[in-house]
């Protein structure tokens, strides 16, 4: 039995398929050049002064680690174009709750991106909790997404961030929208 290895290439996938990524992760705004867009660590984003933040507008996104609370980011959500939630390991589930909170509690309508250890079996759960973009480098995930095989189960026993029609019989059920 061979173990898979993760190749270096990372591609950006959304529900509409793969597309070019016009964002880059960076430590500071110094990386900004031309019309480029950067995703800053939460602390770096919060350290910017208001003037810089409003001048750069939708050219900055924010990367939030699982251990970082959303609270400090919430007042800025109206002007942030992208929130990247980290999965340092696919088994760390904190970012699911944060995606859910961004969408449902805070009404965030920008991009919520999954970054890190993004595997095919978790993408359906991420989609339901409100993730809209995925940085994918796992070989199986790349292959399957390329074939349009996202996977997942169409019968849902609970509401989630994604607005879905109610399922039969009981208030808590939902069915996937195709």
């Amino acid at each position: 039995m061979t173990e898979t290895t993760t190749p270096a290439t990372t591609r950006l996938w959304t529900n509409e398929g793969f597309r070019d990524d016009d964002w880059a992760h960076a430590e500071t705004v110094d990386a900004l050049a031309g019309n480029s867009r950067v995703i800053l660590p939460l602390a770096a984003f919060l350290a910017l002064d208001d003037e810089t933040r409003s001048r750069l507008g939708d050219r900055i996104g924010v990367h939030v680690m699982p251990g970082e609370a959303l609270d400090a980011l919430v007042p800025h959500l109206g002007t942030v174009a992208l929130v990247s939630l980290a999965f340092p390991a696919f088994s760390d589930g904190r970012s699911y709750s944060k995606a859910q909170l961004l969408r449902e509690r805070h009404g965030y309508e920008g991009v919520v991106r999954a970054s890190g250890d993004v595997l095919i079996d978790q993408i359906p759960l991420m989609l339901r909790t409100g993730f809209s973009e995925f940085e994918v480098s796992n070989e199986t995930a790349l292959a399957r997404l390329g074939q349009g095989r996202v996977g997942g189960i169409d019968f849902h026993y609970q509401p989630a961030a994604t607005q879905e029609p109610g399922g039969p019989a009981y208030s808590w059920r939902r069915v996937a929208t195709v």
Partner: protein
Amino acid sequence: MYRYDEFDHGFVKARVDEFRDQVERRLAGEITEDQFKPLRLMNGVYLQLHAYMLRVAIPYGTLNARQMRMLAHIARAYDKGYGHFTTRQNIQYNWPALSDIPAILDDLASVEMHALQTSGNCIRNVTADHFAGAAADEVADPRPYAEILRQWSSVHPEFSYLPRKFKIAVTGAERDRAAIQVHDIGLHLKKNEAGELGFAVYVGGGQGRTPMIAKKIRDFLPERDLLAYATAILRVYNLNGRRDNKYKARIKILVHETGTEELTAWVEKEFEALKDGELTLPSADVRAIEAYFAPPALPSRPEGENAVRQARLDNRGFDAWLKRNVTTHRHPDYAAVTISLKGTGEAPGDASDAQMEAVADIAEQFAFDEIRVSHEQNLILPHVARADLKTVYDQLVAQGLETANAGLITDIIACPGLDYCALANARSISVAQDISQRFASQERQEEIGELKLKISGCINACGHHHVGHIGILGVEKKGTELYQVTLGGSGDEHTSIGEIIGRGFTAEEITDAIETVVDTYLAWRNGPDETFLEAYRRLGAAPFKQALYGDEAKAA
């Protein structure tokens, strides 16, 4: 009992298909064991000492004859002819081949069963009082709520990668037979002054290496808020539970380190935001689920009393069984029967395919097609006419299932231990077997009275030793198995954690030590009405220490 509708069937089929694909990818090497592990665990598949183990969910321990026959079929076709009923009211098979597991899951799906969330860091199979719907002392049947929680928690997108496993138990009576205070969430279904149904909510109980009794964080949660409140607790836990150390990752540690007051404030704040949202349970939905659990129509069978009176005079075995294994039913002509899976010298909780089929037959003929699995690893027939008790007893005798020891010292809970489990440090089954043989005499057991003895083969405490009146914990010391004894634990409405009594005993010594503890109790008790637990709570550890260790105890 609950019946699947098309939605449930569609869901389980899709889940099996998904897992079949994951197994194929694993076998093809497309997915690493690390990546596969949480996926297989959430589908009930463990990698054990000798083989894969499949744990099948029996939601809140309720099943019918058809389902029990399927469990027998799986034992025969894919395993070695037996299965092991567990403390989470589930059944596990110790020898299936990984490649057979999708086929087993198909078989299970054909009888509305699955192996979902019987393992992994997710919300596990929800448990409930095994006498639910039959108990004379219950306010309402807890199972409709357990079923709603089962549905809501199934493949929950937000709560599938929790810091650690998460267990919920529901009881509908003051007398807690579901051990709710040693669960991550314990729900006590009750009525408020207005007569409305709701729950006392306990959080942060658990066993394992750091046993803790749950804290009550809500005295009355209205029924309609059940899912919103559960979501609030789970979200607080998912975001804040420790992930740096798997031994400190359960919600009990979060409650302990945060403080009950502070944690309650977090939960209530989150609940305020969720309240009256789309998770609110409409009463009509609860009533619709409840209708599935409507008790069978129990025709009047007043001839039962005479039949029983006569038969018990003629048959001492039947008399003993009536005393121990037959429980008062809310209907005077009926009883709830405990089928002990603790025959003398047998592995606690094990049942053969033939035994499972016999129980299915009896349930169909005499018990309205209902069977329960208790967390004490026995089977229950919740509704049997007293007039049929003797016939049921005779059929159990034919299968060696008539052991009259429910609640007695040989009604032992034991984990699989080192004979099967990859985590274990010591054998559990052989210790249970030894003790069972030592105390086999019915008269002696009756004299000792109610005594819950529980054995775990390692600190993970799957055998619930912390809440045993007598608990035995297997540890490994310098390459040999050693058994620590705890006394005074209890898993009911007065939950307590047992105290370690002193140095451990070897496998050869442990049964003698238990006998010493029991003899000490018999010598010191205030008559036969004072149970072991009551006597221990009155006396404390001293007389037991003295009896076990003598002057060594004083020196230490």
